[in-house]
């Protein structure tokens, strides 16, 4: 029963991470599938897999960091954005620096 419920509730999405982020977390993979109904849940799931990763992407307001962009289906999204099963979430570093 419990397994059936889990399967029913799962909202599997594909998450693509930037190389600069992956390099900060030994063992992290740039292309991963996880369960996330919102962008915020994706961030928490990433943090569960690679502790500390949410802090690198989300600030304490809380919001996605100013120079991090998250796109779903070509659209820039926020933490609150709901995700459809099978969606692809692209996390990108914005142009920044000097």
């Amino acid at each position: 029963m419990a397994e059936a419920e889990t399967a029913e509730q799962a909202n599997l999405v594909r998450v693509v991470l930037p190389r600069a982020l992956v390099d900060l977390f030994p063992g992290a993979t740039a292309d991963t599938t996880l369960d996330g109904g919102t962008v915020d849940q994706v961030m928490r799931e990433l943090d569960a897999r690679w502790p500390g990763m949410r802090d690198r992407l989300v600030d304490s307001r809380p919001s996605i960091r100013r120079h991090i962009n998250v796109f779903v289906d070509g659209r820039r999204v926020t933490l609150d954005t709901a995700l459809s099963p099978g969606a692809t979430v692209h996390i990108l570093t914005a142009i920044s620096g000097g």
Partner: protein
Amino acid sequence: MAARLLLLIGTKKGAFIAESDGSRRSWNLKGPFCAAWPISHVIGDPVSGTIYAGGGNEWFGPAVWKSTDRGASWTHSSAGLAYAEGETPIKAVWSLAKSKAADKLYAGVEPAGLFESSDGGETWTHIAGLRAHPSREHWMPGGGGLILHTIVPHPDDACQVWIGISAGGIFHTADGGATWEPRNRGTRSDYAPEDQRYPEFGQCVHNFVMAPGMPDRFYQQNHCGMYRSDDGGRSWHSIEAGLPSTFGFPSAVHPRDPDTLYLVPLNGDQAGRFMKDAKAAVWRTRDGGKSWASLRNGLPQENAFMGVLRQAMATDNLDPAGVYFGASGGQLFASADEGQSWVAIAEHLPTITSVETMVING
């Protein structure tokens, strides 16, 4: 075992480590570490050999990096290094200090606030008492932002810490951070109206150091003058007579002689902030600030449009003491003889934000 000296260098593009033996004749430079993030401060704990680097990256936010193998591998954490939801997020870690008495690490951040860690930088707790101080609404950012840039723990009393904020001034706690009081009496604020130039707080302190073996004596480099205190910072008096200017950033004290201090006076806050006449010099007093002499042997004396940032000078505890400074243009200079002569260890580093030393055995 023979002593090994590590120079811990923070730059705008990563941390670097220069290593030498006790003779300090030749140096082996490694880096950049910390994913080439902007690193404001790198410190070492000589007891454990652990190196900590604080900084902040435009993409990924603030973090304290840590290496337990002399820089070969690094981890990073900012767990707990955050203000409450809704407040302006922390941009970067600016300063680090290890308290031997409290067995804690401290981290100063931008916007100004203080955090502590009791587990070697893995997790952090906000010391909320400082930002609860009623002066906070009057703190004004300086050129580097609203930053907590200097942390001086008392060597024996775990409850006492002094911190410096630009521009809020120096504050002291005697109860482990619950309450704080300003310690700025006698330091000027030249950019305030004429009748308000000696306020209780709000001065632009640039850096300050505690004299060895004298926990009540401090030396301070301020935006507006150089000062000494003999009462734990309650009152300060000017020691700038004999120096070429009243402006500079770093200060470094001799490891054993409380009367010997090193400063780097610059030509003024609105004149480029270079060493005077484009001739590089470190200035030293050996009598607690009564008299000064410039140290230039080996430093460039022509076209040296050089600045040194507030955390970018340090001494080591070898004998004779070494003195080191890093310039904004990436030159790193070392003296193995208390400042009498200098050599360039590196000439093309990124902008150097901090220099510290760690002496270890083996």
